[in-house]
C-alpha cells in the first residue's frame, strides 16, 4: 500500500474523529452544566457563606446569573466554553483555566513518570512471560501482574511513602519540585507517586503484551526467522514485538484516562498540588465552575489520548483500516 493511501486514510480517520468530537463535547457540556442543578444545596448561599443574609445571597445569585432561566445559563456556559473560558472558581475567585494551567505541568509530569515506569516494568516483564510461556517466569509475572492490578494505588502509595519516604528517607515522602529546580530533584519527587500511580498500568501492559506476544511468537514467520538462524532475542524484539504492540497501545490509551483519575488519590497522599488535588478540593468545597472545568478538561485529555492511539495504530499497522 502506498504512503499516499495511508496518509489519506489517516486524514479521513482524523476528520471523522474530530467530527465525532462535536456531539461528544455537546453531551459533556450539557452533563457538566447540569451539575448545577443536580448537586444538592444552593450554590449562591454556599458562595455567600453560611452566615450571609438573604440580601447578600440574592446579590450573589444575581451577580453570577444564577437567577436566569436554565436555558439562558446554559447558553452563557456554552458561549464561554467556546471561547475557552471555563468560568471563575467560586471559592478562590480565580479563573478556572488559570488554576488548571498552573497545575497542569505538575500532573503531566506525574502522569508521564507513571507511564514511563509502567512501560519500563510492563514491557520487559510481558516479553519475559511470553518467551517463557508456561514456565515459572511466566507464572511469577502472572501473579505479580494480578497483584499489581488488585492493589489499590492508595494502599501502595501509603506503603511507599511510609516505608521509603518516612522510614528510610530514600526519596521525598511528600511534595513536588519543578524541573527548573533540577531534573534530579524533579524526578526524585515523582518516583514514589509515579510508581504508585503506574503500577496498575504496568500490570495491564504486562498481561496484554504477554498474551499478544505469545500468540505472535507462534506465527509461521517467526518460526521461519528462527529457522533462518536469527537469534531468538532479535526475533522477539525486531519482529515479534512490533506486531504484538497493538493491544499495548490500546492499554496505554485507556490507562491515560485512568492515570488522570488516579492522580486524585495519589496527589492527595503525596501532598502534590496538581489537577487531582484540585479536583478533590473542588468537590469538597462544592466549587461548581472548578468541577465543571475539570470534567471538560478531563474529557478533552481522554479524547486526545484516544486520538493519538488511533494514529499510532496507523503507524503500527499501515495496511489495516484504522479503527
Amino acid at each position, binding site marked *: 500500500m502506498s504512503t499516499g493511501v495511508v496518509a489519506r486514510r489517516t486524514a479521513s480517520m482524523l476528520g471523522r474523529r474530530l467530527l465525532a468530537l462535536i456531539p461528544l463535547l455537546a453531551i459533556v457540556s450539557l452533563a457538566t452544566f447540569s451539575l448545577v442543578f443536580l448537586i444538592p444545596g444552593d450554590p449562591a448561599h454556599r458562595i455567600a457563606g453560611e*452566615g*450571609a443574609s438573604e440580601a447578600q445571597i440574592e446579590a450573589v445569585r444575581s451577580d453570577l446569573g444564577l437567577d436566569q432561566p436554565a436555558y439562558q445559563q446554559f447558553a452563557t456556559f456554552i458561549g464561554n466554553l467556546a471561547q475557552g473560558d471555563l468560568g471563575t472558581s467560586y471559592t478562590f*475567585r480565580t479563573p478556572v483555566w488559570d488554576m488548571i494551567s498552573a497545575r497542569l505541568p505538575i500532573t503531566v509530569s506525574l502522569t508521564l513518570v507513571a507511564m514511563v515506569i509502567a512501560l519500563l516494568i510492563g514491557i520487559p516483564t510481558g516479553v519475559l512471560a511470553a518467551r517463557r510461556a508456561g514456565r515459572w517466569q511466566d507464572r511469577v509475572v502472572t501473579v505479580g501482574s494480578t497483584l499489581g492490578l488488585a492493589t489499590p494505588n492508595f494502599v501502595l502509595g501509603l506503603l511507599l511513602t511510609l516505608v521509603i519516604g*518516612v522510614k528510610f528517607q530514600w526519596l521525598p515522602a511528600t511534595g513536588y519540585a519543578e524541573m527548573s529546580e533540577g531534573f534530579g530533584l524533579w524526578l526524585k519527587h515523582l518516583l514514589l507517586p509515579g510508581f504508585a500511580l503506574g503500577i496498575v498500568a504496568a500490570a495491564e501492559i504486562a498481561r496484554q503484551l504477554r498474551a499478544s506476544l505469545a500468540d505472535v511468537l507462534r506465527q509461521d514467520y517467526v518460526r521461519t526467522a528462527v529457522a533462518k538462524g536469527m537469534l531468538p532475542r532479535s526475533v522477539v524484539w525486531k519482529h515479534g514485538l512490533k506486531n504484538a504492540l497493538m493491544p499495548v497501545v490500546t492499554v496505554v490509551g485507556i490507562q491515560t484516562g485512568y492515570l488522570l483519575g488516579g492522580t486524585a488519590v495519589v496527589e492527595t497522599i503525596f*501532598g502534590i498540588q496538581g489537577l487531582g488535588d484540585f479536583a478533590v478540593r473542588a468537590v469538597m468545597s*462544592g466549587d461548581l465552575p472548578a468541577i465543571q472545568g475539570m470534567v471538560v478538561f478531563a474529557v478533552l485529555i481522554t479524547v486526545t489520548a484516544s486520538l493519538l492511539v488511533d494514529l499510532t495504530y496507523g503507524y503500527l499497522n499501515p495496511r489495516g483500516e484504522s479503527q
Partner: protein
Amino acid sequence: MKRIPALAVVACLALTACGGGDGGGNSGEADPSAVLRYTTSAGVTSFDPHKTVSSSDYVILNYVYDRLVHQSVDGQAVPGLAESWEFSDDAKTLTFKLRTGVKFEDGTPFDAAAAKANLDRALEPDSITAPLLAAVDSVEVVDESTIALQLNAPGAHLVLTLSDLAGMMVSPQAFATPEAAAGLATDSNGIGRFTLTEADPGSHYVFAATEDYWDADALKVAGMEVTAITDPQTNLNGISSGQADCALVSPAMIAPAEQIPNANTLARTVLTQTVLYFNRTKSELDQPEVRRAINLALDREAILAGAQEGQGEASTGLFPADYFVPNDSVADLLSQDQQAAKDLLAEAGLPNGFKFTALTLTIPQFVTTAEIVKAQLAEVGIDMEIKALPPADMGVNFLKGEGDAVITGWTGRPDPSMLFSAYFDDAAPQNVSHSEIDGFDDALAAANAVQDPTERGVALAEVQKLVLDEGLVAPLTFNAVGTVCSDKVTGYEPPVVGISEFRGVGING
C-alpha cells in the same frame, strides 16, 4: 452574623484544624535567611479581609495584614497597629492611638485617615465583618495618629473583635476603585511581617519577609512557604521526611505526631468546639425541657474519648475550663444525669421519648461524635437519626431548614460575645431558629460594658447561663489543636484561639 462558612469548618475544625501563636518556647539562634515551610489544611479564598466570605481566611491573612489589636497566645489583647486604646467613661467612645512611621506594601503611609477608611469599609453591608462591628456608629479622625469609634452601645468586645479580620488594615489605594478592590481577592496590600510573592490559589503560597518590619522580634525568618494539604497523615509525613518545618495537627493525629523523631508537637485545648445545635422551630425541640434533657443525657467524656482520642476537653460550658469566662454556673446543666433527663422528658409530655434528625459533616470526627451521641440519647428513649452531608452543603442546608439539629464545629473567636451574637441573636443569619431568649440583649450589653477581664468574664458567664438554662445548644467537646515542628524550629507556642500566627518563630541554622 457572617461566620464559619463550611470551608471554615473544614479548615479549622476537622481535617487539621488550626494552631500557632506568638513567640516563646524553644530558644536558639535563628537563621535570618531561613524560610519556614508550613503545611496547613486549606488555602485562602480571598486576600480581601473585609470582603471575603470565609472567616477562616484569617489563618493565612494574618501573615500579610497586621490588625489594630493583636492577641497573646492566651487570647489577651496586645498592641498591634494601635499602640494603645481607651474607652470613655460611658464606654461609648473607643479611642485608638495608632503606630506611626509604618507603611503599607505600596508605600502608602499608615495614619488615622487610612485606619478610618478601613473601618468604614469593614462596616459596609456586604462586609463579612459588618455584623461584628454593629456597635460602631461612626469612625472619626481625631488627629493624624488617633481615631475614635463612636459607639451606639457599650463595646468592650470591640477590642478583641478588632484583632480579627475586622481590624486588618489594607492600603486605601488597594480599594480606591472597584477595579483595584477586585484585585485584592488574589493579592494582598497591607502591613504585615510578610508580603505575598507567589500564589497558586488554594494550594501554595510563597511569602517574603517585610524589610524593616516594625516588630523585629516577631520576624525571624526570611520568608514562609505555605502549602495546603488535604490529608492529615500527609501533613505528618512532610515533617518526618523533612519536606516541611511545621504542620497543623488535628486531635486524632496528635499521638502519631508525638512519635515523629526530631520533632516537637505542641498542642493545647482551644476555643474551637463541637456542638449539638438545635433548630427550635422543628420537631419537639421547641420545648426547653426537651433540650435540657438532651444536655443531661450526654456523657461528654465518652464522646471525647471516642471521637477525639481523648485529646481536648469535654465541655463543661461554652468555653474551656481555664478560659476567663467561668463555667461553674452551668456545670450542672451539662453533667450526665439520665434519670433527670427522663424526668424532664416526662415533664414535657414525652415519657416514651421522641425522634429527631441531626445533620452532621461527612468527616470522621463528626460522624463518630454523632454515632456516640445517638447511642447515648437512645438510653433515655430519644431516637436521633443521623444524616451526614459534605462540608460544602451541610451548614447551608441546615439553615435552609433541613434536619432538626446539627452536630458541627464552631470555630474559636477572639471575643466570647462574637460567639453569642453569631448563634443566639435573633438577627444573626446563623441563628437557625431566628429568635432569641428574653434578656439576652440586655445581658450581652451589660457584659460588653465591663472592661476588666475578670469582671467581664463573670458578666459573660451570665449570658452563658441564660443560653444553657434554655438549652439552646448542647456543647460537646473542645478540640485540642497543635502544630508539629521539626526540632530546628524555635519560638512556637500554640494559642488558645487556635489560629497560627508564627510571630517570633525562627529556624536554627
